């Protein structure tokens, strides 16, 4: 099958270009990450990130035939019809909207900055008990679908609002994390958290485009989380 990969080496290239490779999968429905490993055996200069290879570390987010996802848990058959059969090339590009360091490796700095802005850690100024802080299963259930985020950036880099304002709009990933702490019964910094979100950009640039939801490899729903935060802001503001 044919693989077409976005290549850019700042030492030698002025502009990025697409490079074609021929890979023999022996008809097997391999994961995209396996294909990258095969290409790297041919061409050691190819750069991409990878770690757990099972979809929990979030290293290998990339754009595969137009759609963001994790290479390690995306089988060829799922990328696009015809790719596995070799009728169509597999097209691999870096996550959109972030500066490319090399090949498929993007500079995640802006993404992490936005994550840090939401103070992604539990805040509770009451003295800690000798045991755990009690939390009912119902209270705990409120952070299901939020804490599982792996910071792969697939969502934020598929979001047009984040493309246009990556420094001002927090993006779906950071907002999901913001709500993860707003929804945690053990956290009591709600007012402080909300007060940082009611400007026109941080949260309100979300227009319900839902690209984030459609690409999240963990099946999480930032759009809904953002909706919940908006409701909290509304209650607080009027």
């Amino acid at each position, binding site marked *: 099958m044919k693989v077409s990969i*976005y290549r*850019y080496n*700042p*030492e030698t*290239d*002025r*502009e*990025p270009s697409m490079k074609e490779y021929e890979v023999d999968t022996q008809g097997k429905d391999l994961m995209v990450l396996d294909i990258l490993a095969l290409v790297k055996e041919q061409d050691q200069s190819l750069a991409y990130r990878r770690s757990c290879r099972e979809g929990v570390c979030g290293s290998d987010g990339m*754009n595969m*035939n*137009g*759609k963001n996802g994790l290479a390690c848990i995306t089988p060829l058959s799922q990328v696009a019809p015809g790719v596995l059969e070799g009728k169509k090339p597999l*097209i691999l*590009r*870096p*996550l*959109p*909207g*972030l*500066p*490319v*360091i090399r090949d498929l490796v*993007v*500079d995640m700095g802006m993404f992490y900055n936005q994550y840090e802005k939401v103070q992604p850690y539990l805040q509770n100024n009451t003295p800690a008990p000798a045991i755990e802080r009690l939390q009912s299963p119902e209270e705990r259930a409120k952070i299901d679908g939020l804490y599982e985020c792996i910071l792969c950036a697939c969502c934020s880099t*598929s979001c*047009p609002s984040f*493309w246009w304002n990556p420094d001002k709009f927090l993006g779906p990933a950071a907002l999901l994390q913001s709500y993860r702490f707003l929804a945690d019964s053990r956290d009591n910094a709600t007012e402080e958290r909300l007060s940082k979100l009611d400007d026109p950009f941080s949260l309100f640039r979300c*227009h*319900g*485009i*839902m*690209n984030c*939801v*459609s690409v999240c490899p963990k*099946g999480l*729903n930032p*759009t*809904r989380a953002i*909706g919940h935060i*908006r*409701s909290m802001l509304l209650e607080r503001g009027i």
Partner: protein
Amino acid sequence: MNDKRPVNLDLSTIKFPVTAIASITHRVTGVAIFLALPILLWMLDRSLASPESFADLKELMTSPLVKLVVWAILAVLLYHLVAGIRHLIMDTGVGETLEGGRRGAKLVFIISAVLILLVGGWIW
């Protein structure tokens, strides 16, 4: 060493789900309405100024080209309206799942298409 890092943001290489298409269309129609506002205001002006201008406007409206323009304006208005109603519904937390979002976006296209056709029929 090349200091200026490239950004991969060639929109033609990116696939957009139906929800994104619904959203960008909403925005495009919004801008279009803004551009059409003077036309609408002018028509309002003519319709109210005098019986003569009212008659002129009516006369003008019989031209197929003008009909087409009016229909186009109504079409973007209707799409923007229907998609806007979806937004308001989503604000209440309905249709925020992946499936719900997709269904909502498809419904917007179907409903607005039907309405646009109906309005077209009315104009002609």
